[in-house]
């Protein structure tokens, strides 16, 4: 039983770290712009397809391809914010409908360009590490380490840079931040671009592990949604806590029961949180 428990914890943590990167971008965009971005899954998909093109087809090295995937997602995110979403800042319903429409358009474009079949790329990292009774796939460990680096960089950016502090100010009170000289439109652009880049890097890192297809963003979006509702919409520490809890709960239930029960369990937890603490574990009450 102990080897099984160790493996459950390892699997849960590895999944949790993958969820965190996705959820960070989702919660950042909501925290700053008060907008639920349903096209976030498609930015994940764009990251994965960029890796397919540069790493799988053009045979660039994986790290360069990931950097290019982040760049593409950031550029697409910035364009989306400037051309489509800016007018919906603070209008949750309008933004939601716009993001749903955008999600379908991006999926359809990927379908036209890449076709419907599921694609795979070679794995840049193979093999496993055995730690005590547990086995860790190196490629997943790389994703977890990448998540930790991104998390640390993101925390430093928010806490110690002028732009990060300005973002927090806009998230807390846009009008007061404006009176202090913070240009909120620039902050929206930067926040959306960073959020998109986070989705892009998540997709890029997961591309060699899973298959790549136009509809691959559905499930990560759903997970990001569950994680941020659990942790608290707009809360970065909440996204981290939520990601780890969901990862561990899913791992435990999927191993001990099955994946359907695991899915139900994660949503039951979210339901309970919404009933008991509507703002999430670490979210601020409105």
């Amino acid at each position, binding site marked *: 039983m102990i*080897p*099984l428990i160790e*493996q*459950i914890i390892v*699997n849960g943590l*590895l*999944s949790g770290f993958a969820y965190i990167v996705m959820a960070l971008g989702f919660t950042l965009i909501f925290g700053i712009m008060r907008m639920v971005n349903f096209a976030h899954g498609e930015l994940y998909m764009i990251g994965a397809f960029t890796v397919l093109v540069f790493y799988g087809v053009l045979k660039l090295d994986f790290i360069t391809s990931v950097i290019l995937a982040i760049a593409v997602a950031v550029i697409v995110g910035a364009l989306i914010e400037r051309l489509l979403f800016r007018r919906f800042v603070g209008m949750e319903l309008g933004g939601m409908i716009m993001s749903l429409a955008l999600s379908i358009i991006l999926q359809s474009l990927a*379908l036209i360009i890449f*076709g*419907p*079949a*599921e*694609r*795979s790329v*070679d*794995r840049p990292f193979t093999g*496993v590490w*055995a730690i005590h009774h547990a*086995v860790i*796939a190196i*490629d*997943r460990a790389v994703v977890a380490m990448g998540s930790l680096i991104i998390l640390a960089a993101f925390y430093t950016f928010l806490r110690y840079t002028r732009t990060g502090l300005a973002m927090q100010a806009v998230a807390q009170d846009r009008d007061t931040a404006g009176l202090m000289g913070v240009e909120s439109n620039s902050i929206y652009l930067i926040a959306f671009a960073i959020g998109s880049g986070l989705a892009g890097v998540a997709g890029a890192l997961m591309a060699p592990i*899973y*298959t790549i*297809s*136009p*509809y*691959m963003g*559905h*499930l990560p979006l759903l997970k990001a949604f569950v994680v941020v509702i659990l942790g608290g919409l707009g809360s970065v520490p909440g996204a981290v806590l939520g990601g780890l809890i969901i990862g561990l709960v*899913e*791992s*435990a*239930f*999927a*191993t*001990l029961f*099955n*994946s*359907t029960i*695991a*899915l139900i369990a994660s949503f039951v937890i979210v339901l309970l949180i919404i009933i008991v603490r509507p703002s999430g574990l670490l979210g601020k009450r409105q």
Partner: protein
Amino acid sequence: MALSFNASRRLTRLAAVLAGAAMAVSTFATSAATLKLGVIAPLTGPGAPWGLAAAEGPKILAKEINDKGGLKVGDQTYQVEVVAYDDQYKTAEAVAAYNRLVNQDDVHYMIILSSAATMALKQNVQDDGVIALTSAYTAKALDPDNQNMFRLYSAPADYLPSFISWMKKNIDGKRVVIVNPNDETGWDQTRLSDAEFKKNGFEVVGQELFERAQKDFQPMLTKIIALNPDFIELGGTSPATAGLIIRQARELGYKKLFTKTGGAGPWEIVASAGPEAAEGTINMLYANPENPGFQRIAAAYKASRGNPPNEIIVSFYDGAHVLLNAIQAAGTVDDTKKVAAAFSKALPMDSVQGDKMTFGGKTHYGVDAQIMTVNYIGTIRNGKPVVLGKTE
């Protein structure tokens, strides 16, 4: 009032011209008559390799027939047109596609790929007098009360006994875990293979079901590996997903065998798992990769879509061929009851691979409504499928 002679002649000429024009239009209409064949299949998502094969197999056949002048039914010649809609492996989408085919496209003949869609549409097919060919694995797809539903190949209930009996003689170990998708296809495949494995002296140490959209199988595989099976049977798992499961199991240290008694798709498995991880996987095949008939269909698919097909394409090509032969044997495209009754006249016939296809099904399903086909038992060697034997 009497017409003058000239006026009468002009009217006669006009009438002749109109009659000629009407005849020309009628002749044109005859030569341009179209027989539509509908397809409801997952053209996107994990089931797309099968769905695209379901759409393209009949299209290749239609092109061959149309290039030769069309399909002659009675005195009429028809151009065959294939209309395919994506159901994304979802029942609701399949019902919407069916309604579009029947109500908007005026289709009376169709292919339905998935078990869930087939079960959802079974009653509609009978009520609307539509002839449907299904590739559903579920035994419940056919029943004696429904004369309009036919299966286009032998289902697991037909070939699993000989497949698993072959496994008994040819693979080491007795402990098996059965893994299938959590839907009608997977439930049926699990039930059938569980019974056959036990009948052949295997010990089924576990059964696992997963959601089709799932990508992370490590928790499920952790549990499976703890059961210490000698092999993992992937049943009706879609090929790309089967590849993911194989790859993730290898990462967790599982070194033993995988088998897949349904669904085929060895190339997709290799693409998703990698040749090293997929090496040795025992796999049911619809086609022999070396067969010239299959290679002709595969080349036509590749020319159309740019990549090789899932080899199940031969089943959809052959199924559509049997259906068109039944329509010809019935001598009508309008009376679907006559066409349903003519299936027994259309068979036996040779498949595109040269195997004999017969009409049957009564033993397992209580009604002769199935094209009985030959399946192949294969393995993956150096990233390629190799045929080891045939099912009975």
